[in-house]
């Protein structure tokens, strides 16, 4: 069966969408999590509750910090996390000031 998600490192608090999501319910450490709708290929989903200020861990490394409360099953992206180094820009930020 084709995999829909990949958990890259046991310490990661996110998983990555790598295929069509046929069943939005997944089991993580004995708990059932419902995955948010319409998360695109390659994007991340929280598998734990992540508090504002908490680190986002992928591939065992810190890839940024949560800016909002992120519930299990939610999309983790630039709307709820930020870089600890140089801010990520979007075209909207640059041109619709």
């Amino acid at each position, binding site marked *: 069966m084709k995999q829909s998600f990949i958990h890259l490192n046991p310490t990661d608090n996110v998983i990555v969408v790598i295929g069509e999501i046929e069943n939005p319910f997944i089991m993580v450490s004995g708990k059932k999590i419902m995955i948010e709708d319409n998360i*695109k*290929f*390659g994007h991340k989903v929280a598998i734990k509750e992540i508090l504002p200020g908490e680190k986002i861990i992928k591939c065992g*490394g810190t*890839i940024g910090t949560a800016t909002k409360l992120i519930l299990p099953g939610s999309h983790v992206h630039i709307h709820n996390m930020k*870089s*600890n*180094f*140089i801010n990520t*820009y979007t075209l909207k930020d640059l041109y619709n000031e």
Partner: protein
Amino acid sequence: MFKGYLRSDGRKGIRNNILVVYTVECAHYVAKEIAYPFRKQGVQVIGFGGCYPSKYAEKVLHNLCTHPNTSSALIVSLGCEGFRTSELEEVIRLSGREVSTIVIQQSGGTQSSIGSGMEWIEKQLLKSKGIATVEMKLSDLIIGSICGGSDATTGIVGNPSVGRFSDNFILSGGTAIFEETGEMIGLEKEIMTRGVTPKLSKLLKNSILKAEKYYSAMGHGSFSPGNADGGLTTIEEKSLSSYSKSGNSKISGILKPGIVPSKPGLYLLDVVPDGTPKFGYPNINDSAEIVELISCGCQIILFVTGRGSVVGSAVSPVIKITGNPITYMNMKDDMDINAGKALTGEMTLDDIANEIEAKVIEIAGGEPSASERLGHHEFVLTYKSFQPLGPGCLPFT
């Protein structure tokens, strides 16, 4: 294993290109017109657009004109620019290659410069067929790796498969160069275990800190809107992904553009200028990075893409690897390797690494890569300035 071209400095090339080199933008059109009829016969245009002097641009063009994949070069100058064309001509001649210079202002202008340039190329095409061929093996190659148009697959399968190839290649005595310290921001701790000496590890870390300072001054990191669409969120996430193409081998040294490693091993190319940030972004696009890798002697470039890049390069063939199975299906003609098979479970990362090795041997042996077949020979060279390499950057040379 495959046949290459023996150059008089002992280096071996896998292509026999003739370069037409403009030394200011004003001479670019004439250079393009000279090369155009011969574009499918290994005649390529490279050059520098700026009129003000640049030691960096001169060094890069010196190295490309004497690169093992280059057989001869025609310099096309307007006549009043800051580029020192006579030095370039001398460097090419001393390397044992044929060279000629056309100064447009002294050659009767556009039309007659194009005419005499084409005549010179026709003669060189006949001569270049007689250049001695030589047996080459995989470890004779210097292979550069770069990623561009990255998405989430780049760090999951694309770059990790290049990393595995690179580890095997270095074990067998090859030389590999990876680049882009701007995409190592966030890895300051990780890099401390990678150098062959503690001093080198510290210098590797300093090169990342320099990149962070430089990109901060420019206003944002090496991150494009497409990276975010593809699932990446921050520069440190992109860094983790980018870094995985370096594999697990120890790093033997730091290079700067135009420095050719004299011993096998794995090298980091520091592409971020030294001193106060000036001249804008360190690399304005992927092609500028590819040119710098080739200026360090790379005969082949491995280019990992997720979103789907189409670029090739002048001088050295580019092998395109995508980790995204959807991109592979959408842009099949532009891709050489589908590393997405490791994502769908059809193949392992080691299988893909073996496929990369087989492809490198095939392309080195003369088969065109996808971008070569489609006629891509992009070239970008902008203003930069570097200090010479400091002590400890190349510990064992």
